[in-house]
């Protein structure tokens, strides 16, 4: 009896230390009018992530979400928990909705489903265990509250002979407001683990504590209220301002290099496949070994044997790099494995491998891009970035400069006295080769005609195609070129002998990045926002005069460089438009300074006026 009482007391003690008065949280929850913009709010958000080697329960999560506005039920009403069927198990402890003054339990048989994740499909036999558990909450609407509590447990441990890499970043603020937040991270006490709490400038109230209980380290973040982030177009990345708990037991990039090197060279192999030239090798890698994608580190840097990869003729990124390495070697190159980092992380003192954007090979001259859809003419990574070349003892950082060439457009327009025009339009796709190749390859004449017609009429609506040519779609060494000859009646429409020349490129592209007047956050452009365009117009007139030619105009900032120049030569005008958009960051102060200037310049841009003689 005594033992029973003691046990009950102990149980209550443990329970009460975690217990949450859910009903009180709901009763005291904010009304929607007090929180503008949010579709929902977390009334409780508690998660414990246990990284300890012997921990069975890896994740314990408990949250309450109140729906504030229409749209919230769609976004939060179905909760997805991802897990690996072969390694993990999800236990749903609580799943219910509070609505109209009462609790409604989720029907566990009907409304909790285990489905595949999409990765299972694209990965073939690589990741068939990828699963998601979906909980669909009933009776949702404004002011309804969902409660979900679950754990994720390990079914079996993967035995690791070498040091297990532990790293991650926990972003502690997001696009949904939160109250009663507690995030706990538990680690085995090991000398190697380095942690930090970044962006701690207290934009809102919180505490962050570290506790050492002898065998474990426990980091806890607590906050009573965290405001939501309202996203803005092209806004700076969250990494710059959101409080982040960051951890890594990788001491240095050299240590990581050693780790990867060991994995990739766990066995030595020979490929024995040779090619006549580099082009043949690249063609094989991009066209004959298709991408079967899975998450970047899912294979754990344990590539399949070459024989299997060559037999399958499909591979994920690690296996593709592995195959590429041996092909390059067998074809006279000196390759090394490398990681690509197209955006430098802010916190360089922490080694977080998931910050790398790709894994491939470097041959001393170039880093390779052998993704199946990347059919660039030279298959190099030509964006400005850094690569980390793997070595047995140490790695090496190498900067790759910009090798992007601009997309070039040449347009010749001859306008007669009626305003009818003959147009020759040619585009050389230096930078966008992959996209164009994928679009235009393997079509017949009928399809080409339709595609070219569609394309031409975006630029010159209601024109008539006279002829066209599509070149270099399959020639990897040259940029694709599309040339079109058109006729357009009444290209210039005269009214009282005056007509305006409406050129599509006669607008400032840069303006769209400066359209928001009241930004809170700076501007940040990702590598895929980069652009280089060069457009040349040569416009000649017959039986007409140029009544007005605009002045040159230009705008230049760190991220943007755009200019339009007009040169009159007798009866013709040459227009050169140049646009460069770089990736990078512009702080809010610079944005404010540049915005009015850019917009003012853009609005000064005017049009060519033509007059009948």
């Amino acid at each position, binding site marked *: 009896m005594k033992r029973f009482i003691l046990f009950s007391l102990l149980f209550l003690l443990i329970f009460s230390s975690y217990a949450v008065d859910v009903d009180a949280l709901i009763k005291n929850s904010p009304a929607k009018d007090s929180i503008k913009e949010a579709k929902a709010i977390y009334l409780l958000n508690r998660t414990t992530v246990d990284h300890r080697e012997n921990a069975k329960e890896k994740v314990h999560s408990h949250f309450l979400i109140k729906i504030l506005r229409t749209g919230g039920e769609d976004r939060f009403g*179905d909760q997805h928990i991802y897990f690996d069927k072969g390694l993990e198990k999800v236990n749903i402890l609580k799943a219910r909705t509070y609505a109209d003054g009462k609790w409604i339990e989720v029907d566990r048989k009907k409304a909790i489903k285990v*489905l595949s994740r999409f990765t299972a499909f694209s990965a073939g036999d690589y990741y068939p265990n990828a699963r998601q558990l979906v909980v669909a909450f009933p009776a949702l609407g404004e002011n309804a509250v969902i409660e979900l509590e679950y754990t994720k447990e390990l079914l079996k441990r993967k035995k690791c002979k070498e040091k297990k890499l532990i790293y991650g970043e926990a972003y502690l603020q997001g696009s949904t407001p939160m109250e009663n937040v507690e995030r706990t991270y538990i680690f085995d006490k090991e000398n190697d683990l380095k942690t930090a709490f970044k962006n701690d400038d207290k934009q809102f109230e919180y505490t962050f504590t570290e506790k050492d209980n002898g065998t474990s380290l426990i980091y806890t973040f607590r906050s009573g209220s965290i405001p939501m982030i309202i996203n803005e177009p092209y806004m700076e990345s969250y990494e710059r301002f959101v409080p982040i708990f960051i951890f890594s037991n990788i001491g240095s990039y050299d240590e990581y290099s050693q780790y990867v090197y060991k994995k990739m060279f766990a066995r030595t192999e020979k490929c024995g496949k040779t090619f006549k030239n580099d082009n043949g090798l690249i063609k094989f890698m991009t066209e004959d070994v*298709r991408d079967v994608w899975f998450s970047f580190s899912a294979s754990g840097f344990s590539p399949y044997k070459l024989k299997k990869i060559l037999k399958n*003729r499909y591979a994920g990124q690690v296996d593709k790099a592995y195959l590429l390495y041996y092909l390059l070697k067998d074809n006279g190159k000196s390759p090394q494995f490398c990681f690509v980092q197209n955006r430098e992380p802010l916190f360089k003192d922490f080694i977080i491998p998931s910050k790398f954007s790709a894994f491939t090979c470097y041959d001393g001259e170039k880093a390779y891009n052998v993704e*199946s859809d990347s059919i660039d003419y030279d298959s190099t990574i030509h964006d400005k970035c850094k690569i980390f070349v793997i070595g047995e003892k140490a790695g090496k950082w190498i900067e790759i400069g910009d090798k992007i060439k601009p997309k070039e457009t040449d347009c010749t327009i001859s306008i007669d006295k009626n305003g009818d025009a003959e147009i020759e339009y040619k585009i050389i796709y230096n930078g966008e080769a992959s996209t164009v190749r994928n679009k235009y390859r*393997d079509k017949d004449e009928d399809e080409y005609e339709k595609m070219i017609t569609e394309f031409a009429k975006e630029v010159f609506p209601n024109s008539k195609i006279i002829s066209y040519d599509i070149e270099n779609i399959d020639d990897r060494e040259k940029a694709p070129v599309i040339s079109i000859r058109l006729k357009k009646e009444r290209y210039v429409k005269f009214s009282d002998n005056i007509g305006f020349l409406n050129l599509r490129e006669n607008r400032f592209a840069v303006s769209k990045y400066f359209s928001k007047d009241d930004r809170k956050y700076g501007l940040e452009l990702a590598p895929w926002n980069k652009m280089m365009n060069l457009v040349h117009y040569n416009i000649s007139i017959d039986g007409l005069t140029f009544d007005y030619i605009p002045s040159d105009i230009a705008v230049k900032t760190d991220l943007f460089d755009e200019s339009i120049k007009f040169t009159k030569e007798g009866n013709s005008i040459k227009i050169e438009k140049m646009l460069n958009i770089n990736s990078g960051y512009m702080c809010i102060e610079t944005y404010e300074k540049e915005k009015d200037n850019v917009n003012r310049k853009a609005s000064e841009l005017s049009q060519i006026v033509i007059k009948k003689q």
Partner: protein
Amino acid sequence: MNMRKIFDGIMLTGLLLALFAFYGCAGAKIDIKTTPVKKDYKGASSVTLFDISHTKLNTDGSYEHTCHKAVKVFNVKGRKMYSAVSTQFCKDYGTSEIKYIRVYKPNGEVVNVSKKKIQTMPMPALGKFFLDKIMISKVEIPDLENNCIIEYEIVDHFTNPPMENNYWDFLLFEDFQPIVKKIVSLEYPESMNIKYELLGEEGIKVDKAVKGKKKILKFSMENIEKIKAEPMMPALNKVGRRVLITSTESWKDISKWAYELYEPKMEATGPVKEKVEELTKGITDREEKIEKIFRFVCDEIRYVEVGMVGKKGGFEPYAAEYTLKNKYGVCRDKAVLMAAMLKCIGEDAYVVLTNPMYKIDTILPISLFNHAITAIKEKDGKYRFIDSTTFGANVDLPEMERDKIALVMTKDGESWTNTGKKDPYKNLMLVNIQSNIKRDLSSKNIFSIEMNGDMAMSMRNAKKYLKDMDISDMLEQIVKQFAEDAKVDKKESKIEIPDDFNKPVIMRIVFTTANVLQKSGKYYKFNLGDASSMGSGGPGYFNLEKRKYPLKIDMGMVAKATIEINYPSNIKPKSYPKKYNFKSDYMDLSSNYSLKKGRLTLTSDSIMFPATIMPKDYVTEKKKYNEFEKNTNSDIIFIKR
């Protein structure tokens, strides 16, 4: 007799048989050297060498279906398209098995894909469909290179037909890649009355045979060219060569069958009645009551499918009370709840099957429906259709679902009907631009758009998913397309989305700019002139010189634009759009103007009608429109006095 040798022989034979069974037929069936090559099919990424399927039908509607297919891939794109073989099935209805897969390599080698590589998994979540009974079996094809042939066989056992003792099939004989040979055969008991119809262009051959107490129908076609898609063409199911097959006697039978599935679920139990009472308390107007119920089912029952119910899951809805309790369901669940609730207020309500994707063929009774809505039978016997799945719509059926085939579920069964056309004026958009220009040519401008019907629906949907800040950013971006230096007055600018769905959604942007008149030398072009043309879709229709397929214009709408420019005395208008008129079966355009001292007012009306322009009429219509377009000028130009 050497027993040892006999034993070894038996063992060896057994082993070979086991290997044979495991890997599939070991012998090569296709001589790759005799198959077509890429140059025979210009522009194709692959060619289907044969696509042979055979169905063995039983009188109860169950069947075994075998598909045997071989595809030759010519290039990267073809290999990508056929990089995996997969099949899907629903556990409640039967099974599907990939029997074997072989790859024939250009050098003659035959690679048998091990069955061990076939993964069978539940489907992932597809949007808001969480269906763990739907399984997918899939395998990535190894060792694929250009000019390989992939051959496979899939066998389906369909044990639970949706409509007992009935069979339906829809066979499309065309695809976006060429086909050398396609054969579809159906073996059925002679007691079943199987009917078929060939639709589309000619070319499908029909053969009939008798095999004991079974009949065999065989449809075949050879050398099928690939479909070359055109913009705004009708659905392939409507223009491709196709065969419809059915054993059902009439549309009424399908209507009755569906009624039997749905009717038990339509009971308005206590909670349903209570909800109706709560919603319609104090309301006497009939339309208001209908609107209230519609708004509840449309806006408060979210669109989610967490499972299939009953023996005919996927066809059978959940009970009205169940959907009400959970506040989620898919189209059939919402349609049932809607009907049950409407009945509570005395309406003669029904559930209806439709297909909003395209207008299905009606020549034979086949259920090609994929959607369920509700209908009220009015006093004149006509049906009024209501779709409670379209968030943001008013009770009037949206344009997309108009002029589609509908089948009302009734006890005695009914034939198909049409959801009817919508008056374009229900999708009315009013665009108003008022610009007040000062002597220094700076200006204050009011740009407003009033949206009704389907136009308003888009805005309401956007509002559901976007934040107010996103919408505010959107307003800014709209204005800055025309005047980069514009400053939006955020207090006066707004998007009004009234709770009353019969009232329009209004977007109003008030902004100042120094550049509403873009200066080019001595001329000033009014920058907002192009904004008034929002909504007219003419130019996009006639990009192609000629067409093989009809041009289908789905949306009907009316857009009326008014530009009022109040200008100072130091400038005067030099040029502006004069009167014009364009009339056709699909579009009416007209414009007018008035010029008074200090004020130029331009008005334009455009009415678009849903229409289908046949290929033979396309060139004429194109010419007419181009002639009109080249003689109109939308530039509004001022000069200084």
